[in-house]
Structure formats: C-alpha cells, structure tokens
C-alpha cells in the first residue's frame, strides 16, 4: 500500500468539508473493496477520509412507503434488521448472501452502490426496486445512476448518504454464487410495485447491472411463471466471459435465475 494522509471526521459536514479542502482524496467506508485495492497498489490517493466515525449515515428508517438505509449501514445490519426483514425480506436475503460473515460485518451499502462492481448484489436490488440514491448534493433516480461497470452518476466529491427503496408488493432475489469469491456469477432481482414489474440482472453483462426488459414485458399482463417459461433465453452477445463462466452459460443463468426469482416472489 502506498502511504496517504488519514483523516477521521466526526460528522458528515466535516467529511464533506475535508473532501473539498484536500487534493486527491478518497473516502473509506467498510474497506472491503478499497483496502484490497490499495494493498494491490491499484489506487494511490493522497488523502483517505474514513467515514467510520460519522454517526449520521448509520440509520435504517421507514419514511412513508419507503425504507431508507444510511450509506454506512453494514451488510450484516441489513440482513438482521427487523424493519428490512418485515418490509422487504428479499433485501435482507440479498444482504445475507454477500461474501462471508466477516465481510458482512464491515462492508456497507454505500460502498457497494458507489463502487458498482459488475458482480455486486446491491445494484440489482436498487435497479429492480426503482431506488433513489440520496447524495450530499441531490437525489438521483436509479435509472440514471448506474452507468456501466464501476461507473456511476456520482460526481467528484459527491457522497452517497442513503439509499431509499420504495417497498414493493412482491420481490425476490436469486443468486448463483461464484463458489470461490461468493460474488454473483449471475444474480436476478425481481420486484413488483403498483402493477409494474422490474427485472434487474447483475454479474452477467459487460455493461454492468441492467434491466431485462423482455422479461419485464412478459410479466406485465400477469406476474406468473408461465410467461417466463415461454420466453427465449437472452442472447449471449453482451455477456461477460471469463474463467468462471462463458457468455453462453451466463445467458443461460440469467434465464434460470429469473425463473427462480419469479417463483420465489410467488412464494414457491
């Protein structure tokens, strides 16, 4: 790891001020992506601003018909939260499937959504549930937020403060894990809200998380398994291909995981 100056702000305001005042700074959340990146010398910030002591970013609350999760809420907290478990059990399930217990004790939703790894789980939940990414500057609708792998609408110095999830009437997540890394080889989140069905796919595409619009259209008249079973498998054209899975296999998994997610959302 290259050396950097370490900062530990005690409030969100101090953190934002520090980012404004320092050159070439990066924020540290749970560190489960950033610390390995720093150790591999793939990043070399001059200043590291640790959000670990900032108290404002840690709450899970219900605001009207949405669940709002602070950026520094850890995966383990989402998995165990009574509020999340009762309002959006699929989101608690998803958090429980991330990495391993030790990763879940440190890693945060803000870090995951900021990083937008093409195999990460939370981006699929955000996209399927039509979440709003709340930052220190504005509120970003999710359809404008994810812009391809490791790319988001976040600007220089803009921090995620929370993610707001409208509570769906039905939702489920089906994940085919890479058995070694535990990231999603393919993960599919389906959510139904006010008659609209959204199907978000992570792990598969070389463009990062995306909506499978053909599946959404098929499910529009009626949310059931039959229309998915009749649907053609998605083409493998834009699918990732690596030592873990070929593009064809990933396309097949998108189909199978969508079926499983729909079945799960129907309680089967």
């Amino acid at each position: 790891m290259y050396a950097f100056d370490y900062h530990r702000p005690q409030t969100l305001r101090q953190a934002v001020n520090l980012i404004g005042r320092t050159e070439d700074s990066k924020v540290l959340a749970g560190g489960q992506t950033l610390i390995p990146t720093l150790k591999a010398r793939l990043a070399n910030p001059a200043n590291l601003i640790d959000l670990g002591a900032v108290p404002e970013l840690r709450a899970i609350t219900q605001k009207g018909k949405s669940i709002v999760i602070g950026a520094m809420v850890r995966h383990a907290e989402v998995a165990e939260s009574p509020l999340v478990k009762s309002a959006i059990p699929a989101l608690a399930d998803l958090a429980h499937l991330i990495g391993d217990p030790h990763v879940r004790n440190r890693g945060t939703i803000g870090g995951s959504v900021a990083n937008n790894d093409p195999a990460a789980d939370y981006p699929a939940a955000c996209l399927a549930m039509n979440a709003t990414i709340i930052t220190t500057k504005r509120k970003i609708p999710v359809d404008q937020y994810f812009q391809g792998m490791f790319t988001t609408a976040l600007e220089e110095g803009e921090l995620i403060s929370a993610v707001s999830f409208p509570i769906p009437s039905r939702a489920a997540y089906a994940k085919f894990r890479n058995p070694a890394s535990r990231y999603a080889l393919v993960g599919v989140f389906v959510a139904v809200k006010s008659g609209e069905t959204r199907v978000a796919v992570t792990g598969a595409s070389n463009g990062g998380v995306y909506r499978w619009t053909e599946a959404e259209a098929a499910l529009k008249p009626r949310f059931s398994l039959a229309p998915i079973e009749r649907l053609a498998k998605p083409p493998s054209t834009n699918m990732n291909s690596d030592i873990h899975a070929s593009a064809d296999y990933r396309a097949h998994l998108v189909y199978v995981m969508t079926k499983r997610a729909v079945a799960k959302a129907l309680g089967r």
Partner: protein
Amino acid sequence: MPKISMTVNSKQVSATVEGRTLLVQLLRDTLRLTGTHVGCDTSQCGACVVHVDGEAVKSCTCLAASCEGAHVTTIEGLAQGGTLHPMQEAFREHHGLQCGYCTPGMIMAAVDLVNRKGFDLDEQLIRSELEGNICRCTGYHNIVKAIAAGAANMSAQPVARAAE
C-alpha cells in the same frame, strides 16, 4: 501520523501508526500478538479474524486507525489464565486442527458465531457460517464437530464468552 488508542484483550494500548498500517500489523508487529495469522493477505482466508467491538473482522482488511477507541479481542484474549476457552478446548478435544495455521481465525469466527446464533448450532449452519475461513489441512469435518461441541460447552460456562 495518527496516534491511536484502543483496548486490546482488556488492556489499554496506544501507538503512533501510519495511516496505511493494518490492524493485523499493529497486533503482530507492534504489540507482538502473533497468534493472529496472515494467510492470504487478500481478504479471502479468515486466518486473521479478530473481534472488533464484539464482531468478527478480517484484521488484514481493516486499518489500525479505523479502530480508534475500539475493543479488540484476539486469540490471546480468550484463555483465562492457564485454562483454555471452551472453544479452544473443543478444537483440542475433537482434533479440529492439523498444522494450526487457520485455527486462530477459525476459533475467533466460531466464538463470534456463538455470540450471534446461540449455543445450539447445527452442522449446516456451521458450514455456511464458515464461508469466510479456509483450511488447507483438515477437510473441515473435525472443525465443524469442534465448533458444535465448543458452542455447547460455552453454554455451560457463559462467563467464558469473549470478554468484550
């Protein structure tokens, strides 16, 4: 350079570290608590697991400075005087180790598991909760047995839960 203080195994410690110093480096190199091991150094294997404020954390993937004011427990903090912690005793009794390299992390993960899920742990739960801990020797079978037994023994001695 950050000056930090924290409680390690119930003792107050202070040190001046570089921002980039990892918790495991502080524990092993500065405090000479070499029971915590570095297996992979890439956040995969769990040999470096310690408890920070009562939660299992990979100390190779955590900055020392991030633990300002925290209560840290390492494998050295489990035994009471000359008496092994019930989880350590269970690993000995059930032959839950061969070379022993993964063992400190396994035991810290196991005690964390008991703290979260209670004393009655079934095999499937133990196996799925061990996802973050890799062992190259044992094939896990005896580790799983040791954890189930250690958990049950901890219920008989509730004071022996990690001293966080």
